[in-house]
């Protein structure tokens, strides 16, 4: 944000880099969370965010999803700043946060079907998504009857209901058993094989994903501690 446009246009000669972050900085409630985050992703690549609690992994994902404003640096999609067309960026992003967004009164099939309709997708994808995360048997059970792991599986299945090039996953493996982790790895592999990109925050090694990805250690991007005298004023 606030960066000169000539910088952006000069980068269109690098089409391989789909998503590029340069010296990103983030503020939440006036407090600096991280500064100087730089990375670049091409189609089919994955980036794993690691770092201690509070190092800004979730904030970076929310910033990449467009929920948080870019406080410093720039974020480019094929060389064009994301802030130029936030609506377009929304349509190419899928986000999975800590919450599963499940309604107690809706069944998994109704839930997926709603998100499919919202993204103007056909109901055929719903059955495929249910199958990908072994949710067929639970498909007609109300959301309130689902266990924590089952809720997580439904939230993950939602990612596959409408295709988008960028997946932002915030600790997607929480509560998953080994079979479901494999389903997640398979879904990520399909997503990447189709040219999709993945940015994932995790504390856990996910065989097949974390070993074939770039790593970004968020502990390296701690902002400068605020000036104590400025705080007193």
């Amino acid at each position, binding site marked *: 944000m606030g960066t000169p446009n000539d910088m952006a246009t000069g980068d269109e000669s690098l089409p391989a880099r789909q998503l590029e972050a340069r010296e990103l900085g983030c503020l939440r409630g006036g407090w600096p969370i991280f500064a100087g985050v730089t990375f670049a992703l091409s189609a089919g690549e994955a980036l794993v965010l690691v770092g201690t609690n509070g190092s800004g992994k979730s904030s970076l994902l929310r910033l990449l999803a467009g929920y948080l404003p870019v406080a410093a640096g720039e974020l480019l999609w094929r060389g064009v700043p994301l802030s130029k067309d936030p609506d377009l960026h929304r349509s190419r992003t899928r986000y999975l*946060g800590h919450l*599963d967004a499940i309604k107690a009164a809706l069944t998994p099939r109704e839930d997926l079907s709603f998100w499919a309709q*919202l993204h103007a997708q056909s109901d055929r994808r719903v059955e495929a998504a249910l199958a990908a995360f072994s949710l067929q048997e639970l498909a007609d059970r109300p959301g309130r009857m689902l266990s924590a792991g089952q809720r997580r599986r439904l939230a993950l299945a939602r990612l596959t209901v409408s295709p988008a090039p960028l997946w932002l996953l915030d600790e997607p493996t929480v509560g998953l058993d080994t079979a479901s982790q494999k389903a997640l790895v398979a879904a990520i592999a399909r997503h990447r094989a189709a040219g999709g990109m993945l940015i994932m925050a995790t504390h856990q090694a996910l065989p097949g994903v974390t070993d074939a990805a770039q790593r970004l250690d968020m502990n390296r991007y701690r902002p400068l501690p605020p000036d104590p005298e400025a705080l007193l004023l």
Partner: protein
Amino acid sequence: MKSWLALIGRDLRLAWRQRGDLFMAVSFFLLVAALFPFALGPEPNLLLRIGPGVVWVAALLALLLSLERLFALEQEDGSLDLLLLSPLPAEAIVLAKAASHWLTTGLPLVLAAPIVALIYNLPFDGYGVLLLSLLLGTASLSLFGATGAALCLGARRGGVLLPLLVLPLAVPVLIFGTAAVDAMLAGLAARPHLLLLSALLLLALPIAAFAGAAGLRQAAE
């Protein structure tokens, strides 16, 4: 448009699955309206005089009941984040939520209003104007309400802040709504008041869309 209808459809389905909540607003509306004769005495002329105003105040209070949860539930379970990444712009999300709020709360109140009119002994030929004014007015109130609910999302004590924000906005609706019924009872034309109510509804649409959308985006930060 299809996505927009999908969101309304989901909300209607959720409301139907939890339909106890729907009856709550209607029962509250009827109870509040029934309280006044107990407090003020059953004198028919007095009741006829205060009837139109009581219907409107009771409807306004009943609409407020369900407003707080309009976006708060979506935010609590994480749905709001996902909705904001959908092809629907935030403006359309606010309008869809206002529409489902009106369909699940405003419309049942309008349908229950003849019972209140009966309690207050309003003449039958006034029912048409009463219902029409309520139809237009409750729609505006749902829109102003959705605006307030979106703006109060991040706030602590949003439940207290919300009426403080919405009630002043509701005053013009209240004035022209009761004026329409009063005019009709006095044998005057209700049409100018109904037109003003329609104008308020048209004014509420962009206010809700833009202010509400700003509230939602702010809440996602």
